[in-house]
Every structure is written in C-alpha cells, then in structure tokens.
C-alpha cells in the first residue's frame, strides 16, 4: 500500500486532475484520454477546492483502518469546474449534509495502515 500510495501522492495531496487542451473539460482523478471529446492532449490541472454535494451516505460499518472515524459521511462532490470526485465529509453537522450543499476542501488524515501503522493524509471536504 505504501508504494502504491507514494506513486500517486502528489496528485492526491494537491488534488491534481486532468484538463483537456482541446475541449477544456476537466476531471478527477487523472485520465490519459479526454472523457468528453476523446483527445489525448491532456495536461495536469489543480482542481478547485470548492464544490457541492451530488449525493452522499453515512457509513456505519467501516473497513479495517477506518473504525475510529465511524460513522462518517462519504459523498460524491461536484467541484466548481464540473469535475466530480468521491470523498469524505468532515466537520459537518448532520443537518448541514444534504444534496446541493456547498463544500470546501481541507487536508486531513486519511487512514492508518493496519500493518505498518503508517498514516496517510489527503483531501476531505466540509460543508460551508
């Protein structure tokens, strides 16, 4: 897990996705070929740090490594550039988590590896 994470950590820490230089479509996570127009002229692009909730759930039965956080919210968020990502919501009251609510990015601890105890960090979102 550590090596796999290291390979993508830049993109994960800095929320870097892709922008198509032909049609301008942006998406996250990164792609090799534009999902909108099919062009392979792709460049790295830092994603906007705000967006809105498309749909969500509150997870009560977590995976190993996530027990301490449960229950927690998972959501599909549409960023201001139209790119969508799946993420966790933190620091948000139950009443504030709803479809369409505005959210902003915040760096948080992601998970603790069960074997090595290694802690990884990444972006999560909170309702504004």
């Amino acid at each position, binding site marked *: *897990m550590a090596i*796999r*994470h290291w390979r*993508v950590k830049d993109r*994960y820490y800095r929320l870097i996705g892709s922008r198509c230089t032909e049609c301008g479509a942006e*998406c*996250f*996570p990164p792609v090799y070929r534009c*999902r909108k127009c099919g062009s392979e002229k792709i460049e790295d692009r830092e994603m906007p740090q705000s967006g809105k909730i*498309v*749909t*969500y*759930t*509150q*997870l*009560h*039965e*977590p*995976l*190993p*490594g*996530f027990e301490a*956080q449960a*229950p*927690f919210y*998972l*959501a*599909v968020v549409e960023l201001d550039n139209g790119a*969508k*990502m*799946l*993420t*966790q919501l933190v620091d948000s009251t139950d009443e504030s988590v709803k*479809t369409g609510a505005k959210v902003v990015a915040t760096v948080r601890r*992601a*998970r603790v590896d069960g074997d090595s105890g290694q802690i*990884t960090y*990444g972006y*999560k979102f909170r309702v504004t």
Partner: protein
Amino acid sequence: MSRVAVVGIGHSRFGRRTDVNLGELAFESIKQAVDDAGVDRKDIGNVVVGSAGGWYEESLPAVVVGEYAGLSGAGTMRVEAACASGSAAVKAAYNSIMSGETDVAMAVGVEKMTEVDTPTSVELIGRAGSYTWEFENYGMTFPAYYALYAVAHMKKFGTTQEDLARISVKAHHYGSMNPLAQFQKEITLEKALGSQMVAWPLKLYDACPLSDGSASVVLASEDVAKTLTDTPVWIRGVGYSSDTANLSRREDYVGLRAAVTAASKAYSMAKVSPREIDVATAHDCFTIAELMAYEDLGFCEKGGGARMVREGETELGGRIPVNLDGGLKAKGHPIGATGVSMAVEITKQLRGEAGRHQAPIKHGVGLAHNIGGTGHYAYVTILSRD
C-alpha cells in the same frame, strides 16, 4: 439463424457450506444439470466456470471443478464479471455453440465466500470499484456505493426507506418457499426497518448475505436440443454492457446506465418488449438495486419503481413478478453462481416447474438481470419457451 437452448439445470443449496469443498459444491449442481439434460459427459465440448474468486484457496477453479465432476478434457475457462460472472459464463457457453465449435456446452457458477472472515470479505468487495481513489483513500464499501444511489433516488423521486424494506420483505416471503435458499423465514416490515444501519439509508435487511453455492446449466444447439428434450428453453437475447470503475465518473446516481444499455440490446436481439415479460429475476444485492432494475429494464418509467413496490406489481399475481426464488437477499448471493442461478430459476418458471412460487406464464418469456459491482458490469438475458 440457429438457436441455443437450456436443456439441463442444477442448483446447490445456498448458504454457509462448510460441509463441502469447491469441487464438491460445484458438483452438486453439475450432476443435477447433466442428469436433467440426459447428455453424455463426453459430448460436452466446453465448460465455462463463472467465479469471481479471491474468497477460496483454489486459483484455477475451472480445472478443479472439471476434474471432480469428470469433465476433464472438455475446453474450459474461468470467466470473471464480478457478481455477473455467472451470466458471463452463460454467454460464453452460448457463444461456443452459436459459433459452431460445439453442440453442447455448460455454464457452471460457483463461489465459496464464507472461508474468510466477514471483515476480509467486506474488504474484498469494497476493492471492487476504484482501488486507489475510492477504496484506499476514503474507505468506500460496497453498501456505501449503493447507498449513494439510494440517497439520490430518494431525493429525486421520493422513494422511501419503507419502499426499500418492502422489497426485502418480499424476498424473504418467496425465500420461505425455496428449500435451496439461505434464508427461509418470513420477516416483517418492522424488523427490516429496525435492523442495524450499515450505510444510511441502507440497513442490514437491505443487503444480501455472503454465501456459498453453485448453479449449472447445460446448453445445446437447436438440432441436439430437440433430441434431448420436449421442453427446451431458448436463449433469445443476451445484452451486456459496462460502466466506469470510479463512481465519481457516473452521469447520475438514480439508475445504472450499463443495465439500461444491456436491457435495450437484449430486448432488441430477442425482439420482445418489457410488456411481454412474464417473470423476471433482478439483481437485488441491495433493495435499491432491485427498485432501480424495475426502471432500468423498462418495467415502469424512470422514477416509477417505488410505485411498483407499493402496488405489489412485482409480487406473484402482479404485472411482472420479480425474484420469486427469494432473490439474492433471501436465496443468497454466491457471487459467481448468481447469474447461472437466475438462468436456472427462469428456466424452471418457463417449464412450469417452480411449484409454490410458479408465475402464470402468458407470453412464455422470462428475463434475468444480473449486475456486477455497482453497475460496473451488466448482463440481461431473455429466455423463452419458443
């Protein structure tokens, strides 16, 4: 164009099967299917094994199963399409007959999921989407994926937790009539609604169990089928499609695009409309999945799924009875076996051999809807009496 028929069916008991190993479990359904078809084992040219794998120890299940069942020598392979592996196996076996390679082929679906503990199993299933971006970083689980769809569907169409619970009650009702089902007890609406929360709004009783089991079908070309049986059930249409690994790439969360595409291809190939379907199985890994299936299959308009539940349209006596074998929820869901189990159930229904849960057959057409992952794979298979 030549045709392919189901000429033999077999089905093991589903559930926690610590009493058998993988080969023995597969053999239970293989033996029934071969006997039911009345074929000589040496005439079976191709044995396709649907199994997602990862839960049991054997890494070459097709070879292990083939040897135990006395089928070594036949062409064989294992196919994987997650929870739709069984339908993929039926499709591959069908193809080998349609192409003229063989006149008789088998599809065997088998899975042993209870050899690992539940957390390991939850992890294995959770990894099915986008490993890096959704599972590892954020702890997505399989119930959470479908919960994202449930919340979106409830928001857009007013579907309620009670609508979903009714699907679970229906599954357990029919499961109580199926001696091969994992759960054969009725449940109440209150029990379903009061069960433990897994991923809001999905609760324990909205989810299918982890299961061991196998199911098998023998398929034959038209010429051979007519020498074997007076009641062939023809594979009239198979549609299949796929969707993105990352759930964030989906256009919306109120239906499965792959299922809509697969259904449309299957209807077009079979030259039938949803109105002609007498009986169906829908992939109810979660209750919301069955409700969305009604819509994706065109049994009702988009957003009409909850109304079909409330009006009992998918119960016995309703317009299109769905999952009269108990569905994944009560019958059990040994991943690779499920698609073949659906073909077995629809064949039984069309032959009129379903006993207490027999649907009235008017047009002679049945449909199996089998989804892999969260709409990552979709297979729709249409069978008919003529």
